[in-house]
């Protein structure tokens, strides 16, 4: 075994990769929001209020950040039943969040702001939509964690996967807060 333990490690490589990936995803949204700023400075920009349901979805995703943090704690204490409950709740909250965003899109569409309408509306659909896909990606990751927790043949004791998942979840949460503040101020 000594052949392998000479490799020095500070932070788990998967976590490290996730930090870099978060930088990368941030750049994508910086790209979107810069495009938004540039476009907003040009003529014929139509300002409108964001759908109110976005505030509900904000509450939902904030709560889900709490539940996944509790899930990590329960996993480390090997309370597997509580852990499974908590990641299920988190994944469900993720789906509710996505549903709220879709509902928001429907509201906008009903108020004469369809996707192909004014460019200020199109931006909301694209930016919020791409963020929603990132949340759903997190939901898929949680489903995999869930399936793993039910495996009987192989038991997982490493907390790294759930830590990675929770870090990502907090990230998409923070990203949403940034987007919400940005889209509310720069209307």
């Amino acid at each position, binding site marked *: *075994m*000594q*052949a*392998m*333990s*000479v*490799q*020095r*490690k*500070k*932070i*788990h*490589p*998967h976590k*490290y*990769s996730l930090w*870099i*990936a978060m*930088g*990368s*995803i941030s*750049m*994508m*949204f*910086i*790209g*979107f929001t*810069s*495009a938004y700023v*540039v*476009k907003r400075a*040009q*003529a*014929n920009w139509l300002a409108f209020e964001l759908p109110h349901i976005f505030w509900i979805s904000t509450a939902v995703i904030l709560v889900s950040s709490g539940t996944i943090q509790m899930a990590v704690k329960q996993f*480390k204490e090997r309370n597997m039943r509580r852990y499974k409950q908590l990641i299920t709740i988190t994944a469900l909250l993720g789906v509710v969040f996505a549903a709220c965003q879709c509902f928001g899109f429907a509201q906008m569409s009903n108020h004469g702001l369809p*996707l*192909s309408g*004014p*460019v200020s509306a*199109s*931006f909301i659909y*694209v930016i919020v939509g*791409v963020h929603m896909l990132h949340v759903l990606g997190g939901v898929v990751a949680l489903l995999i964690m869930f399936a793993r927790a039910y495996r009987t043949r192989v038991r997982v*004791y*490493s*907390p*790294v996967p759930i830590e990675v998942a929770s870090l990502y979840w907090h990230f998409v949460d923070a990203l949403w807060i940034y987007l919400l503040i940005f889209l509310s101020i720069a209307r």
Partner: protein
Amino acid sequence: MSNDATLHSHQQELTHGAVAHDDHGNGHEHHHEDSFISKYVFSMDHKMIAKQFLITGIIWAIIGAGFSVIFRLQLAFPDTAFPWLETILGHWAKGGRITPEAYYALVTMHGTILVFFVLTAGLSGTFSNLLIPLQVGARDMASPFMNMLSYWFFFLASMVMMASLFVQTGPASGGWTAYPPLSALGDASIGSRIGMDLWLTSMALFVVSQLLGGLNYISTILNMRTKGMSMTRMPLPIWSFFFTAVLGVLSFPVLLSGFILLLFDRHAGTSFYLSELFVAGKALSNEGGSAILYQHLFWFLGHPEVYIIILPAMGMVSEVLAVNSRKPIFGYLAMVGSLFAIAILAFLVWAHHMFVTGLNPFLGAFFVLLTLLIAVPSAIKVFNWITTIWKGNIRFTPGALFSIGFVSTFISGGLTGIWLGNSSIDIHLHDTYFVIAHFHIVMGVSAFFGMFAGIYHWFPKMYSRYMNNTLGYIHFWITLVGAYCIFWPMHYEGMAGMPRRYYDYSSWESFKQFVELNKFISIVVVAVFATQLLFVFNFFYSIFKGRKLTTTNPWNATTLEWTTPIHPGHGNWPGEIPEVHRWPYDYSKDGKDFIPQTVPVSPDESKH
């Protein structure tokens, strides 16, 4: 549950198949035999993935360069029919002359293939994969699985792009930059139809591949270095791959957001890039979009992209020059610092591609200043390469020759960058052959030279055989002389105002003077292309029949990759990973020809 044990089990995964596992219960040395599929196809060994990137890149290079041969024939002989063209291109070359649509498709695909598929994936994909674990002393990448996915996303992107070459309306043909409105309106040209959709799909897959690869490169370099391998003891190629990966990870996502908005404009009726337009006499419903917005998003990637292409070449050239002149690299920290400076400046100069878009001249002045600043780190690097080989005991291997050729083309192509970086001159030279000459020499030819240097130098590590030297020398001299013969005259054409991307210059009074010059260029293109085929032959022939490697360290180099066995397995070192005690450039020190990094510093040794 200690964290140590977690990491431990992870390492076991990493070294799967290469090291004895003590949890099998039988205790003896145990090797997993890889099946054909897991060894050659869905391999997680970074060395095999490197080869996959390289060979896919070579195939793309032949196609991309072949396209340039075909459109150069059109430029040189606009009135001559080549019946064989109709044989291979069908209705795209009716009567043996390629159609204007085919010409634009060929030009576009030549750019896309060479920039992204060959010089990005083929170059940094190959050598980052091969060299990072070997030179920092790691058994494999941080995540071998993601590394495998990176190749297979590239493969998927390749397949989609390849498919787009065969659709009835042809591949994308609005230029490799895919500017709207040509790229946003399906009715704008036949290349804007399904070909453009496939182009965007392929590029999105390509971005995913680059991100997966880049994440791994960064995390491996920062986390998986062996004992003693501090950052300042890393060989220069590793530094260059590191900055390349950082550039890619931060700029490719912005390109992706630009593409996403473009896809919405194409298919969902949005108006991000489209404003009041008439197509075939009919007014479109789009209003208020800005085509310039796309250019900003595109060039925010596009400019770092040229450094993504050139930085790995710079790093490998530094290494090959030091090894083959038996001298330490001159100014190691200055080399690292200039790579860093180039990486930072790469993000701050994108609008110099857009001086003619109506950019505010006041804003333009800043971009001119920042662009010209890049000359400083570039000049530092050139100076250091020259002082590295100065009074060296140079071994003129093909790798060394290509490295010296790299320095030559980087200087002559880089100097014209100072012209183009000035907005006042650029307004005259924009979109002329001067630009073509500039970027082909500084980024196309130079990057290829760096890549060739890397292939000749590390071929023994990849395939445990040498490439043929004589063919290598023929390859080098014809390519060097040919590259200058092709691109030098283009400067004159550009200064005379000859625009790029025209189908036929012979009908223009101002450019008739260049008819013979264009013929000359095209004939050289054919010769140089044939020489590259010679290289490809040498490459594949040497894989199977090349002279066999008999020593682990054929170039007497100091770096870790030459401490692995001649045929390294998955895991690279059969025993422990060697420990590093010194920097990688102890050549001709204290009367010794070279001191490997693994040798401890002796007390009576002189300081650097």
